């Protein structure tokens, strides 16, 4: 099956599941062209740097999905199908239902290219030539250790995202509302969810307090929207974070924990990053710009997205890039990356393929 044929078949599924991030076949075509340089790169050799080259897709990809991250599962399987691989999907129970639905809506020819398993399938793992893993860093390390060096390994571990606010002169309520949206989506559990908003220490404390109050108000307005069920362990984690903040003398704005979507805003002056527990719990961190590098040290290499509140100075951009950030965007857009974004700073389909170069001038090559 040629690439374009697969793209045609995937067009409908992109439209049925807009959360995957592709609007339809146009986006898929563009993705192949951007990453593989030619729409037919997977089908034929094409001219490349004075020679010819062709992308070879894995025969079989073994996907390990994380619990409750069904969108990442959809994306991973879709990209596997796009390059023409057979896909074995190790699927944890919480994401089984959405994944089964996704697969059931695939055209038959593509459906036959996907097999689900509900626990580790040693045989399928060994037969696969590419391993894609989503999950915590322990899970990534575990599967990486299992993967022989001749197989391609692509790991997407947990990441952290932040919002750079900088100096505040006036309270920009529109941007605060957009920030509240970024914080609230997916109950702040995703790698694109901001955990901290960074404000320059030189900002007058009265303005910071007004900023936090406005943020609390925006989060409060979103608190009745459809949310997750929060279990007792998660409630306990929120409560603990709040109580620790109070005992440490930080200012806390909070909703009742009886609300459907409880929220918490904590203003602190800290020397280094510390994650929140999710569930709309955001730190507003006053940081000294000259000490930002130190502040970011605990999450060096683990930063995903930096949301920009209004503007961000070049030296701060460089600092975040050096700390490993892979994406900058405006607030309000943090949870919706471009269809062509580099997930964890890498090309998404190019990462799966290997290239075969043909440098013999006097003989043409057919695929």
């Amino acid at each position: 099956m040629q690439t374009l044929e697969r793209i045609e078949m995937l067009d409908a599924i992109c439209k049925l599941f807009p959360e995957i991030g592709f609007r339809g076949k146009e986006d898929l075509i563009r993705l192949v062209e951007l990453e593989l340089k030619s729409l037919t790169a997977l089908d034929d050799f094409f001219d490349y740097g004075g020679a010819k080259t062709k992308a070879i897709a894995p025969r079989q990809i073994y996907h390990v999905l994380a619990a409750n991250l069904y969108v990442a599962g959809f994306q991973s399987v879709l990209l596997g199908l796009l390059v023409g691989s057979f896909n074995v999907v190790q699927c944890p129970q919480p994401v089984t239902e959405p994944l089964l639905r996704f697969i059931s809506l695939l055209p038959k020819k593509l459906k036959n290219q996907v097999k689900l398993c509900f626990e580790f399938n040693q045989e399928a793992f060994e037969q696969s030539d590419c391993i894609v893993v989503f999950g915590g860093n322990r899970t990534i390390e575990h599967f990486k250790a299992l993967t022989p060096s001749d197989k391609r390994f692509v790991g997407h571990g947990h990441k952290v995202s932040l919002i750079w606010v900088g100096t505040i002169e006036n309270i920009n309520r529109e941007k605060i509302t957009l920030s509240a949206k970024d914080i609230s989506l997916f109950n702040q559990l995703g790698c694109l969810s901001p955990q901290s908003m960074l404000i320059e220490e030189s900002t007058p404390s009265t303005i910071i307090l007004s900023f936090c109050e406005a943020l609390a108000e925006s989060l409060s307005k979103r608190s009745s929207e459809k949310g997750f069920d929060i279990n007792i362990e998660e409630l306990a984690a929120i409560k603990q974070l709040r109580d620790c903040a109070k005992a440490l003398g930080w200012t806390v704005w909070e909703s009742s924990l009886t609300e459907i979507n409880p929220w918490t805003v904590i203003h602190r002056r800290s020397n280094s990053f510390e994650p929140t527990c999710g569930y709309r719990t955001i730190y507003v961190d006053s940081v000294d710009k000259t000490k930002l590098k130190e502040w970011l040290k605990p999450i060096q290499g683990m930063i995903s997205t930096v949301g920009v509140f209004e503007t961000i100075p070049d030296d701060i951009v460089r600092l975040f890039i050096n700390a490993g950030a892979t994406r900058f965007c405006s607030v309000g857009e943090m949870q919706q990356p471009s269809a062509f974004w580099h997930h964890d700073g890498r090309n998404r389909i190019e990462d799966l393929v290997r290239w075969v170069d043909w440098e013999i001038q006097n003989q043409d090559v057919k695929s």
Partner: protein
Amino acid sequence: MEGQRSFFQDPANRQWWIDQLLSLRENPQNFESLAFRLYDFQRKHCPAYKTLTETIANRLSSWKEIPAIPQELFKKETIFCYTIEQAAGHYLTSGTTSGIQGRHYFLDPLIYKAVSLQGANEAAIPIHRACLHFLTESPNENPHSSLSAMFSFWAESNPFPSYFWIQNKTFCIDPFIQKLNLDISAGRNVGICGTAFSFVLLMEKHPKSLSLPQGSFILETGGMKGKHKEIDKKEFYQKLSSYFGITQDCIFSEYGMTELSSQAYSKGTDGTFLVPPWAKVLVIDPRTEKECQVGQKGLVRWIDLANVDSVLCIQTLDIAIKTQEGFYLIGRSNHAPPRGCSLSIEEIAFFENTHR
């Protein structure tokens, strides 16, 4: 007088406090006044508690309203009513979840010693009628383990020989089995005390079962804390019972924590945990901060009057069901599994441990 920082620095006053605690069995009505006295003292002298309680209404109508500090705070801040230089020592939390260890400072270990001994007596654990084998390090090897300290207090007060079987970080299984077999042959009662993990390891490494003399007991504590695949408690007790040849009502479970001075105990697989008279456990609904009804699930909050040098009221993340007499511990769940792909403190610690 009792509000002054020097009050609990005076050994005579500390002994008076111990006497007050130990008399609570006969005079339980005194619990509240003692709790309020200690609360007033600590909120004046423990800076973090002072900060926390300043945000909360001062007038309390019941000991149940005493504000709790989160257990986690011991990892972030010094929770002590004096300067660190004045501490006689400290115990360290395990740090298994985040890699960060909390510290529990104390002026002297005498109150801990007194309540550790009396707490075991209150729970009817026959620590004075058996040779004691501790599957832990001794305090000499691990001076910052509150569990080792408690076991050493038991050992000191026990007229029979006692042994610590973890030496140089190694569980000395063969010498332990040899000594145990000698005790068994001589018909001596034995008490074997250790973490659940140490018992699992013992049964794995030395699968041949034993037959302890009647009157012997097992005391397990601490759960697996991420060290081993956790097993169901019922299954675990069945295994212990058949391995050691004792009935399940000779198996005790201890529930305590480094940040506290007192312990709760249960007996047998279905045992409700009970606390001694100088401590209380409230099962709290985190949504409302109110005490749960009998049969409801909530978070364990301790009020421990033996915690004189730090803070008496500690909110844990441990989950329990309130029962008529005490509480049934469901899990020491201080790390709910993350539901998304956002980074957690545990992962930062894991990354630092493995990559730096």
